[in-house]
């Protein structure tokens, strides 16, 4: 076990990680934020969405200053209903990250599967898949996500819309990002398909599915990982944008984007902290994941640059 760790530590991958300050810093920042989101119920000083624990008198407390009525101190202040901004950010980040990861996973599974089929099987199915991808690529991802969100919302029964919003969001963002995965996997599969190990596997009588999943898939995972990281940053921003526009996470389950939407309303009345802190968190999160993705791309696949 120790040997395995030592070998991993000495690998090219870890070497370039240890020698890139940007990668180390953005990795630490991303990890801290992700852990904070996962552990939100334990870290958060308040449970912002339990109406019983809220005190309206605490509304609009400034950061780090005792509230003028109750004397309570909130690190990052409170919003109009007396919810602790720090706690809402932790819970909001939880939703943002959950939607981001789930959307990327969905896009990855869909894109890799379709890419493998298009690359390995080809034929009219492959042509059809890539034609659909081309058409979708004509439109910006965010527009596609909005449209799918709108259509999927139309299919959801009205009383379930708020509960289902998160899943609809994941579906919409995931569906808007599968194209990148499919294109890269298809390209890599076309290259791998001609190699000898694939021919050997075919001669051994393995089925097409087995060759795709067991032989080709492990060899095309490198670029998939790169796209997944970049796509995570895109998904987080897309989620925030949709929620900000009011076509994403509902106010009862606010993500960072929803919090920024709420905070924007207080910009003119001087309660800057309701807006600033969620916005800064979103920016830090997106930037950290983005830089990590850039670094990963340079290490794993210099050609993609």
């Amino acid at each position, binding site marked *: 076990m120790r040997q395995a760790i030592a070998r991993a530590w000495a690998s090219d991958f870890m070497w370039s990680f240890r020698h890139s300050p940007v990668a180390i810093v953005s990795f630490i920042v991303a990890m801290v934020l992700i852990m904070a989101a996962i552990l939100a119920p334990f870290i958060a000083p308040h449970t912002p969405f339990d109406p019983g624990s809220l005190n309206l008198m605490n509304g609009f407390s400034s950061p780090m200053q005792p509230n003028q009525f109750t004397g309570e101190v909130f690190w990052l202040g409170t919003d109009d209903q007396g919810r602790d901004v720090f706690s809402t950010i932790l819970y909001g980040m939880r939703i943002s990250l959950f939607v981001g990861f789930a959307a990327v996973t969905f896009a990855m599974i869909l894109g890799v599967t379709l890419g493998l089929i298009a690359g390995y099987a080809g034929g009219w199915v492959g042509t059809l898949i890539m034609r659909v991808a081309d*058409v979708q690529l004509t439109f910006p991802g965010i*527009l596609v996500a909005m449209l799918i969100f*709108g259509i999927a919302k139309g*299919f959801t029964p009205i009383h379930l819309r708020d509960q289902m919003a998160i899943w609809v969001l994941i579906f919409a963002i995931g569906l808007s990002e599968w194209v990148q995965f499919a294109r890269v996997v298809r390209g890599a599969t076309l290259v791998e398909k001609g190699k000898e190990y694939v021919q050997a596997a075919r001669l051994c009588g393995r089925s097409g599915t087995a060759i795709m999943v067991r032989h080709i898939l492990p060899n095309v995972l490198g670029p998939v990982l790169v796209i997944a990281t970049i796509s995570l940053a895109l998904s987080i*921003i897309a989620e925030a944008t949709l929620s900000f526009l*009011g076509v994403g996470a509902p106010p009862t389950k606010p993500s960072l984007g929803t919090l920024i939407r709420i905070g924007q309303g207080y910009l*003119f009345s001087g309660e800057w902290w309701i807006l600033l802190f969620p916005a800064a968190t979103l920016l830090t999160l997106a930037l950290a994941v983005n830089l990590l993705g850039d670094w990963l791309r340079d290490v794993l696949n210099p050609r993609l640059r």
Partner: protein
Amino acid sequence: MLAFTIKRTFQSFIVLLVVGLVAFSMFRFVGDPVDNMLGQERTGADIERLRGVLGLDQPFPVQYFKFLKGAVQGNFGVSYRQGRPVSEIISERLPATLELAAVSAILAVGIGFALGVFVAIRRDGWVAHTIMTVSLVGVSLPTFLIGILLIYLFSVELNWLPSFGRGEVVMVGEWRTGFLTKSGLQALILPSITLGLYQMTLIMRLVRSEMLEVLRQDYIRFARARGLRDRSVYFRHALKNTLIPVITVTGLQLGSIIAFAIITETVFQWPGVGLLFINSIQFVDIPVMAAYLMLVSVMFVAINLIVDLLYFAIDPRLHVGRSGGTG
């Protein structure tokens, strides 16, 4: 050239047909149009009658064809929410979006291009370094945060510019323009910067990298060896050859401006079609969504087609490659 044009036009046509199918399916399958139009006290006979009137009892391809025919004539039915013809609502709001998009595009292309050339020529100066670093942040910043930031700075803190709306507008024929009044022009400043900033950084970075690439080529070295002045080398020899990829990407970016206008229009409550689209999603107003989808697709497909044809027309190497067969 002719074969290429015909093929590309045909492809664009297919894309539009597919998008039309999506838009039509939205009408047909998302919610029941009869349900939406009839009130609570309907009878089975009412439903049957309306189905007949709307043509919903006809086979799918016939309905699709009818929808396309309507769409070509600009007829998208009646908004569920506002109860007015969709075409009327859209044509009322389209000028706002087009004016915003045009100003942003001019800003993005003009400033982006100039800055790109500048940072390529003075690439080791501190000004160029600063611009490049700032642009990196600009690319990571989500559009809506840029908008909020600008509002905070120029509307809340400095109180120089309006934070929402179009200001006073003047009717020029059917076109409602904000270009002719002072408040209209003031209202245009912040939204157009917000919308143009991302495209501007993209264009700047692209121009820079293309320019650096070209400056490395032999003919630039020969031009310098001949003793040409810097200005002549940069602007007459180098710049021309950076234009081809820049035109392509810029053209495609113009399409994104229309799409990203949705975000900017929401931040600034700009009364254009983007804001209309967002509201239609919130209220699941299918006819408006379908019409917007068709409208945007036509613009996108047209832009893509023009860019492709332009690319072919500008770059002489493509002609040689085709007719000579040496590629």
